[in-house]
Every structure is written in structure tokens, then in C-alpha cells.
């Protein structure tokens, strides 16, 4: 069975339909499967429910699918960087389901592992817990959250081989490994496509069993959302603006 496809459109051929649910890896603009997102935009598929920690920024990442109004609903933990998102949400064109970031990560991990639900303290006693089953364990209140499985997962990796084994780079790993496990079909874009045996088996993070299709994106453009630097003469300093 051949998993390697010549380009992103070919890798998604036959998988896309209106109204489907798609998981997209990445944190901010770091580790997003941008080439696959572009191919989804170009396919014209509509009414998508997208599960992703963030919603890109205007015109970049999932922002592309917001601009083209292909998204019906987002399941995310934070969407504060996207003006188009705000406009469409306030106009009632877009639904949002906020999940605490750890709950989102665990729902995806659970979905991929065949776990239909779990209990967590996160969100107990808040709006997030309303309407959810509550249980007490060892004197603490917990709420039940459901596992998530998507029709399709799209992920970005640093290296992959033709078997679909994946290795990620630095903080571009984030949600990608869990999402790879939680798609009925998972398509991975990789910056370096290698032959089996080139990756050290001890270093593989996502085993190929979770990846059905793979595409090489040699010239992936990566974006920096907050470019923060220090001068060579300066002592280390952190800053940060309040949101």
C-alpha cells in the first residue's frame, strides 16, 4: 500500500465532503499543516467543523478558511488573534465551542485511544461544567468530558518516512501527535520525506499505523506570530503585553 501522494490536493482527494469534522494540528501558527489547509480551501468544501487549538490569524492558517467562509463551527481553546473570526462570530455566521486547552488535548487523546469519556477537575464549578455529568472522587468535584474523533485529521511533521512514521521539531509538535491518532483518516504533511530506515525507531513520535496518507512539502513557509528578540549586548529579559 502506497501512502505517499504527489501533492496536498492528491493527498486529500476523495476525503472531503461538506459538513465534515476536521482536526487541524498546531498551536498559534506553529506546527500548522498549512499546505493541507490551502488545499482544503481550494477544494471549496463547506460547512466544516474544525477542531484546532486556535483559528490562525487573518489570512494565514485556518484564517484562510475563515476568509472563504468555509467554516461553520470551531472547537478551540483560544481564538483571540483573528479579527475575521470576531466579525463572523458577532454576525452569527460562525459557531464556537470553547474547550479548556488541556480538556481539548485530552478529548483528542481519548478519542484516538478508544476512550469515549473521562472525568476532569478542569472547569468544575464553571460555565464549562454546565449540563455535564458531575461526579465526586475523593472529596473533589469532577465533570465528564467526551472523547473526540474526527472524519479527517491533518497534521504537520518535521520528518516522515513512506510508512507514515513521524518525527516533530521543537514546539511544532503540540497537538499534532494526538490528532494523528484521532482521525478516521489522517493525512500528514512533512518537511522532509525519507525512506524507511532513515529515522531512528527510538525517535519516532507518531508510528505509521496512525497515518494513512503523507505528502512532502519541501518549501513550507513558516510564520512567526510574536517576533521577540534581545540585543546581543543586553541581559536576558522577558516582556509580554497584557491581553
Amino acid at each position, binding site marked *: 500500500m502506497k501512502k505517499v501522494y504527489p501533492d496536498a490536493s492528491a493527498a486529500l482527494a476523495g476525503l472531503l465532503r461538506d459538513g465534515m469534522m476536521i482536526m487541524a494540528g498546531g498551536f498559534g501558527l506553529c506546527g500548522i499543516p498549512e499546505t493541507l489547509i490551502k488545499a482544503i480551501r481550494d477544494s471549496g468544501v463547506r460547512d466544516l467543523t474544525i477542531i484546532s487549538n486556535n483559528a490562525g490569524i487573518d489570512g494565514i492558517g485556518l484564517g484562510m478558511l475563515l476568509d472563504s467562509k468555509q467554516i461553520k463551527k470551531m472547537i478551540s481553546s483560544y481564538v483571540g488573534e483573528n479579527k475575521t473570526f470576531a466579525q463572523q462570530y458577532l454576525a452569527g455566521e460562525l459557531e464556537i465551542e470553547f474547550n479548556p486547552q488541556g480538556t481539548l488535548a485530552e478529548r483528542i487523546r481519548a478519542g484516538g485511544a478508544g476512550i469515549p469519556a473521562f472525568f476532569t477537575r478542569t472547569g468544575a464549578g464553571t460555565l464549562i461544567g454546565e449540563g455535564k455529568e458531575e461526579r465526586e472522587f475523593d472529596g473533589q468535584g469532577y465533570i465528564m468530558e467526551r472523547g473526540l474523533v474526527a472524519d479527517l485529521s491533518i497534521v504537520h511533521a518535521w520528518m516522515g518516512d513512506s510508512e507514515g512514521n513521524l518525527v516533530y521539531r521543537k514546539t511544532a509538535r503540540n497537538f499534532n501527535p*494526538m490528532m494523528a491518532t484521532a482521525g478516521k483518516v489522517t493525512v500528514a504533511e512533512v518537511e522532509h520525506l525519507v525512506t524507511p530506515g532513515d529515522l531512528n525507531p527510538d525517535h519516532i513520535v507518531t508510528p505509521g499505523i496512525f497515518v494513512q496518507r503523507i505528502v512532502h512539502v519541501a518549501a513550507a513557509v513558516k510564520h512567526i506570530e510574536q517576533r521577540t528578540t534581545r540585543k546581543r549586548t543586553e541581559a536576558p529579559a522577558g516582556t509580554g503585553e497584557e491581553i
Partner: protein
Amino acid sequence: MAWTREQMAARAAQELRDGFYVNLGIGIPTLVSNYIPDGISVQLQSENGMLGFGPFPYEGEEDPDLINAGKQTVTEIPTTSYFSSADSFAMIRGGHIDLSILGAMQVAENGDLANWTIPGKMVKGMGGAMDLVAGVKKVVVVMEHIAKTEPKLLRRCTLPLTGARVVDMVITDLGVFTIDKRGRSGMTLIEVAADVTLDEIRSKTQASYKIAQNLAQAAPVIPTAAAE
């Protein structure tokens, strides 16, 4: 004189202990990393999947694959490790992080915290805040004592909660309070910024609180090398 943002950060840094694993929120909490006391080694956790991170990179050395939870470019240090978001929140939700320092819009005398949404205004999302306050061993809030003229330390929060009974300590520009979030001792004022009076604090605080018998009044020492 009320404390400046830097002095509040320096006071929060006094809660660090050698060997702590710490998560710092955006805003004043980020400044805490500039005031880590001498002789204390801590590892900073970033919830996007990094433990142990260094300062901002030199110009020209920014790496799009290497960012913190505020999406800012950062650097590796010798102790750095990378992991998935699920592992990251296993650290946070599993009680492996010793200290979380974060900002707030409101804190109640029972330890309730509100910092993620204002109904009727645009909602950005809670990110990792609900997980941090539910899972981290000690939660310290650093915030301005009032918002314009509105008190932020309240009997009960009026905004939707980020967590119920989760805050252990509040550091404002006027002083420091502890909260007995699991017990019944409520909120206690333990420290006052230099030249701030108890009357001023009382007039700007809606929450009820006790005053510690050994109440301290002093500005924290700011390490000169780190002062801006």
C-alpha cells in the same frame, strides 16, 4: 507608594523555591522570570509543549518552531524537553507543576477566580487557564488592586469563573493576601506595600479579610541588574 509592575513581579518571585516547576501567565507574571532569586533553580513550563526555556533569541536567530504559550519566540537551554499538548496538560492537570502565577479580572474571598471572559463582549477563550488553576499545586494571582475604580477583590465574583476555590495567594500593587481555599479561614492580608495604608486597602477592597498579626510593610528588593 504602590508597587510597580516590576515590583509586583519581584514580590511574586519570592514564592519560588529551589527545584520548582513553574508556569507563568501572560503580562506581569511573565516578568517574574527576571527576578528569580540567586541560588534558586526553577524550570519554566510552557503549556504549548516545552519544559525549561531560555530568554528571547538574538535578532536573526528566531525559530518559528520554537515559541512559548504567548506565541513569542524563545530559546532552548540545556535542560529543555519538548512534548505534546497531551503530555503538557498531564503535567498541569496531574499536579506535577508546583506553582502557577497568572493574572485575573476578579478574585473572591473564597478563592474563586475569573479571568477569561466578559459576557456581551468578544470572547477570546480560556486557553490553558482553567487547567492550570484546577491542577497546579499552588496558584498565585498577580493583578492591579482595582480596575479603574472597581474593586477586583470581591465577596463573590460577578464574572464567569475560571475556577472555583482555586487561588492561594493574591499579589496586588497595594499588598499581599493569602486565601485558605480549602478551609474556612478566608482571606488574610499578610503584607502591605511601603507607604500604603490599611485604610487605602480597606477602601479599595470589597472582599472581607483578616489582617495578619505579623503584618509586614516593605517594598521588595529589586535586583538592580534586572531593573528596567
